[in-house]
């Protein structure tokens, strides 16, 4: 189960190091992915050659920076098959993107009696902003249930049909659960929401770098993602919004760069995307995110998805054979994304992560920004192994060996 691209690991400088005397096994890709040389080079090249402010200067460097920044926007529009680059708003990441919709759209459209719908397995960043928007507007927040004692049944679609009343003004849901590995049927969810006139918001943080994604085929209104989980830098992300919706939306932040005409009394706004990008944007990281799109497409996103799937299949088989393990999310053999969360009856996730680290294996332990879900499943924390394009079957064996050592140690 080695990556299908020869020498792909050589593209990632960070992978080639020892941690605690052992070769690093990086299995925390759900938190953030590693960066290929081409993305790091794009950052360095920008700062060494083109660094300048955008949209303001008429000098050569400023024009180069502006071209590269707007080129990145077009590249990303193309990456998710948006109809128009103006539908791509650069943000800090998924969290900021969702907050922008919750505040701008929520403020304009939500009122008492309205319902905002989300699911029981959202990341805090696709949950708390809706709690806040509901509180601010007097709207009610409702949750589509998750099925199964281990969350193995996915979203309760029958319950969704009952919950989707004309009062629902917005439905926000994750594409792939960062904790369960569940892949939601996003196109179907958008279709159902549209039938009652609800606006859809998709949290694509875990899907964007892992599977082919086409916003027009999905049919969503808004979609949010982070660059750092798709081989891009931290500090840059995207809010995709349908052009007609964005044009009706008031900005959340105001200042330089987003105005047409300013007097001492008032100001008028530029159209999207500038309207939503007040101040000097994160030029370097946006350009590097464009480079990340190039990198992923050169490998092929369907091939990345196939590799993720192959790895997680092996991991599910090997992990489910460990005594006393409880795996949450889809069962062995069922469709799931490239991550596995699990708990041991007698060893806490933090102890697991500490011991695995001693073996050079990087895992995530905790509630995964999913506290209500943990509570629902009767857990306080899980350990998560999350895979990406550069992981190998041998690394899964290192993980399993480390877990066996931990179980032995704590069994005394």
């Amino acid at each position, binding site marked *: 189960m080695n990556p299908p691209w020869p020498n792909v690991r050589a593209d990632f400088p960070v992978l080639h190091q020892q941690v*605690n005397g052992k070769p690093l096994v990086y299995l925390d890709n759900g938190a953030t992915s590693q960066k290929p040389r081409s993305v790091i080079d794009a950052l360095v090249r920008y700062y060494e050659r083109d660094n300048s402010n955008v949209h303001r200067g008429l000098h050569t460097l400023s024009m180069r920076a502006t071209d590269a920044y707007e080129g990145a926007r077009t590249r990303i529009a193309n990456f998710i098959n948006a109809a128009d680059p103006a539908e791509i708003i650069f943000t800090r990441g998924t969290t900021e993107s969702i907050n922008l919709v919750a505040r701008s759209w929520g403020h304009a459209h939500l009122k008492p009696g309205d319902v905002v719908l989300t699911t029981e397995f959202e990341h805090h960043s696709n949950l708390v902003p809706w709690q806040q928007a509901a509180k601010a507007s007097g709207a009610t927040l409702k949750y589509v249930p998750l099925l199964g004692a281990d969350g193995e049944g996915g979203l309760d679609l029958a319950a969704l049909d009952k919950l989707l009343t004309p009062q629902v003004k917005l439905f926000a849901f994750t594409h792939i659960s960062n904790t369960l590995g569940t892949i939601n049927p996003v196109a179907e969810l958008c279709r159902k929401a549209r039938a009652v006139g609800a606006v859809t918001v998709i949290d694509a943080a875990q899907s964007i770098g892992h599977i082919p994604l086409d916003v027009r085929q999905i049919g969503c209104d808004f979609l949010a993602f982070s660059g750092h989980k798709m081989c891009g830098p931290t500090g840059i992300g995207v809010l995709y919004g349908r052009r007609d919706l964005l044009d009706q939306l008031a900005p959340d932040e105001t200042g330089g760069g987003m105005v047409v005409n300013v007097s001492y009394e008032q100001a008028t706004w530029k159209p999207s995307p500038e309207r939503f990008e007040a101040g000097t944007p994160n030029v370097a990281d946006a350009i590097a995110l464009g480079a990340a799109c190039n990198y992923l497409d050169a490998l092929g996103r369907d091939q990345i998805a196939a590799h993720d799937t192959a790895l997680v299949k092996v991991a599910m088989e090997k992990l489910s054979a460990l005594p006393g393990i409880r795996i949450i999310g889809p069962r062995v053999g069922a469709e799931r994304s490239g991550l596995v969360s699990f708990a041991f009856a*007698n*060893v*806490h*996730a*933090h*102890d697991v992560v*500490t*011991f695995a*680290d*001693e073996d050079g294996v990087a895992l995530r*332990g*905790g*509630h995964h920004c999913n*506290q209500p879900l*943990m509570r629902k499943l009767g857990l*306080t*924390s899980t350990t998560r192994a999350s895979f990406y394009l550069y992981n190998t079957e041998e690394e899964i064996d290192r993980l399993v060996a480390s877990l066996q050592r931990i179980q032995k*140690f*704590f069994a*005394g």
Partner: protein
Amino acid sequence: MQDLTDLYQSVILDHNRRPRNRGKLPTANRVAHGDNPSCGDQCTVYLRLDGDRIGDISFEGSGCAISQASASLMTLNLKGKTAPEAETIYAGVHELVTTGKVDEDNLSDLAALAGVHQFPARIKCATLGWHAALNALKGDPITATTETHKD
């Protein structure tokens, strides 16, 4: 990295496997809760003050071996103590888990927590239950979080 057996000493493993004074205390007249928001660990401490002494004490919660063992050891060390005595014992524990310095006279079995100082990320685990206990002693109904208290 330091050897993990320094952190997971046999006393710690024993208290993690068989926590002492775990569960609700029906006779408690003080209770306080501690949360560690960064990792989701929780600890509730129940205690009964008889006059100015801790007549009985227990804890409930979930967390890693370090947090569970530390809370278990805490109950053994605080039973029968007054609030000022408890503060002094905690000062020693704090010193221990942040510097590794053992005050041989006062700490006894708590010395097993000395390894924690080599793992700064785990200091909060070791102090969670203690913060809750000190808050319970103050009759403080508020939730202690390790984010708002010094370790």
